[in-house]
């Protein structure tokens, strides 16, 4: 169910576009309206999500320290694993966000002959990192469809990405990479028993969706050779609020675009918000300077404590007998 439903839903989505564009001629709906809806939902959704997070304070400073903290001057502090200043925190977060530092630590536990052993296990790190970076490059690469003239930086990325000039149009390394990465992420979910057991429909759906987006994109580019000039016209129109749909863009483009729009709409309501969450995680984005600088909790509750005088009045006689000094030396 948790695998089949997401799979079927992607299937249905693709059928919907085919029928909508091919049979019902709803180019305006799929080319103009849905992209706008998607962008709006994505932007408003993300603003609301981040607003929801931001509306609550971080009551306690709880960094997870993964190395020596700052203490005595002659003890070497591990500034990136146990940062005590803002620049050090930024360094830690950069490692986390750009290089997936924590995932790099991953191990795999094995139990054999009553002994536990922890082997290095970097595949998830490698697959995950390659997936996210590839995705970023592909998104940046798509900007050539939005910008006229195309900026030099994007040309540069394209030419690096298309380094192996083995097809026409030029084959992008990232296209192959992302296929491999998504397949890896999907296969480990399906095949590794522990991961399969913890996975939800919400874990399969985005993977199927991204997989379909990649496939439709590749088909457009290498097989069906969709007319890029007309796509640029359509996107140019979207950007300048001129609602025209050029004739003769292949259906595969609408499949690709629609699935991207679904991704945009789905994003703010799903686990994909981890993109924002990773910046805000208090175990990573706070300095381990707790005893040096007081952290303020705005709702710090008033709590009634058992005060010393209450304590003394209960144990007074016993304390006198034991010659423990008292606060008030009356009754002597």
């Amino acid at each position, binding site marked *: 169910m948790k695998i089949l439903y997401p799979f079927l839903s992607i299937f249905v989505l693709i059928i919907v576009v085919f029928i909508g564009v091919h049979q019902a001629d709803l180019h305006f709906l799929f080319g103009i309206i849905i992209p706008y809806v998607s962008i709006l939902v994505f932007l408003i959704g993300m603003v609301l999500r981040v607003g929801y997070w931001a509306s609550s304070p971080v009551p306690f400073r709880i960094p997870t320290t993964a190395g020596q903290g700052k203490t005595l001057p002659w003890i070497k502090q591990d500034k990136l694993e146990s940062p005590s200043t803002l620049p050090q925190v930024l360094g830690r977060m950069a490692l986390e966000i750009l290089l997936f530092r924590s995932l790099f630590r991953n191990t795999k536990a094995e*139990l054999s002959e009553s002994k536990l052993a922890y082997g290095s296990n970097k595949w998830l790190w490698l697959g995950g990192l390659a997936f996210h970076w590839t995705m970023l490059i592909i998104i940046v690469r798509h900007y050539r469809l939005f910008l006229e003239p195309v900026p030099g930086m994007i040309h540069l990325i394209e030419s690096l990405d298309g380094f192996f000039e083995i097809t026409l149009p030029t084959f992008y390394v990232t296209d192959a990479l992302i296929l491999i990465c998504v397949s890896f992420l999907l296969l480990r979910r399906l095949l590794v028993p522990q991961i399969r057991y913890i996975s939800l429909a919400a874990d399969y759906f985005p993977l199927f969706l991204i997989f379909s987006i990649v496939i439709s994109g590749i088909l457009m580019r290498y097989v069906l050779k969709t007319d890029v000039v007309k796509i640029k016209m359509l996107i140019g129109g979207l950007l300048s609020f001129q609602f025209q749909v050029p004739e003769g863009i292949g259906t595969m483009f609408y499949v690709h675009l629609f699935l991207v729009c679904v991704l945009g709409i789905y994003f703010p309501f799903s686990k994909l918000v981890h993109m924002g969450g990773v910046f805000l995680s208090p175990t990573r984005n706070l300095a381990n300077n707790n005893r040096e600088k007081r952290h303020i909790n705005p709702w710090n509750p008033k709590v009634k404590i058992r005060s010393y005088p209450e304590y003394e009045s209960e144990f007074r006689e016993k304390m006198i007998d034991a010659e423990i000094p008292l606060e008030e030396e009356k009754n002597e």
Partner: protein
Amino acid sequence: MSKYVPTRKNLLKSIEEESNFLSGLTPEKEWLDTPISFRPGNWCHGGKPQVIESLDAPNPRKWSPNDKDWQLPANWQKIIHQGMKDQLDKSRTLKIFMDTCVRCGACADKCHFFLGSGDPKNMPVLRQELIRSIYRKDFTLGGKLLGRLAGAREMTEDVLKEWFMYFHQCTECRRCSVFCPFGIDTAEFTSMARELMHSVGVNINWIMEPASNCNRTGNHLGIEPHTFKQMVESLVEDIEDVTGVTVEPTFNRKGAEILFITPSGDIFADPGVYTMMGYLLLFHHIGLDYTISTYASEGGNFGSFVSHDLTKKLNAKMYHEAERLGVKWILGGECGHMWRVIHQYMDTMNGPADFLEEPVSPITGTKFENARSTKMVHIAEFTADLIKNDRLKLDPRRNNHRTVTFHDSCNPVRAMGMVEEPRYILKNVCNNFHEMPENTIREQTFCCGSGSGLNTNEYMDIRMRGGFPRANAVKHVHDKHKVNLLTAICAIDRVTLKTLMEYWVPGVEVSGLHELVGNALVMEGESERTEDLREDPLEEIEEDEDEDI
């Protein structure tokens, strides 16, 4: 051994063979369809009514977790829902952690309870899902619309029982949070769940009774002031027997420079008492102007295993007493969760401690700038500084009968970043020191398996499972280097690791760091030492090889 745990052989067989991901078996049913079952050794007694009443806590009653009817308040679901909403509103941390998990599985095999049980609900990700599933149902659109397909479920009494079981199979050790790519910390879920359960009267007596005692008498065991003093004085006599030196601790003395607070386990529990003897020798050695309080006679904070309010209530005594006695700053003994609270919560909850001064070592003049605001220094920082400045006369050969390994306690290492100080001290007070394998120490250290208030006898099965990874690593160095002493800077460790070693690795004893310091200290006017603080004979020291000590 406890009747609540099978023999070592049988437990090991069970860990290896029962439906266990680690041995390649997949459970037949999805976790949402797997009911829990209470059996001897896997649950702790519920909070006793008089204990709950003494803390003005909700729903005091006589109950047992294996009762069918938990006698919950009629509107308990509403209380939990409202409690969840309040906690989410009050904490961005929880919101982020609820929304951000992608179930990548990196945490799955990082939990000591998972490694010792193979129970899928002990994978940190599933432990979180136990609450996250309710969060989805109550607070997200997808969960409301799609229900189980979105991983959402209703809060029922069975779910509450599942929470009770699995949020008491988490020791809030935070090992998983080291590996999580988003730093999601299961300890936050556990403390959320325990606070919610507490709000409907679901808690365990082993936590609630020490908390109640601590509130009334100042320490977990409920030791009253005169007895507390007697207990320390009997340690003073033991010190005299071994060293011939009379140390003179004072109690509740106004005007002392430093207030010393340590977990009460060091006063009464074996082997914590030897650590206490080490502190007393150290303070005498350097002539420290300090006092011990009978009112704030507990470093540990069992409130921190229940709720933020109770944490604050118990912790407040430290500053309250420091202010009353007019000391300059506070020195804290070896303890794990005590230091989690002091380092990450105390100043926020009960500060600012304006009435204290920035801590300066009266012996070396070192300013503890890292404790500038909280004004409380860890004894390992204090002693490391003394050794570095050559203020201690140490003969590490007096620990030659010990081959030592060091257990990093969860909280000092993962919540403070205390890694090197204890190692520096160890290397100066003993000659035979070996580290355990690297995936089991420092920030990757394994919990003793009984932390966060679970070190009770009726829970022995789960405790011995949870401690299995730690014991396994100790066994490795025991076999390889003949390690016979496991040293830790945590009072709970000292008690629970002792039991753990007796069960899994007989032949390894457990000590605190300052017990070894006490052994090595060459005291002025001491008699010839033939025994260590445990009154075990020392290895003979060949004096002709004597270096200049």
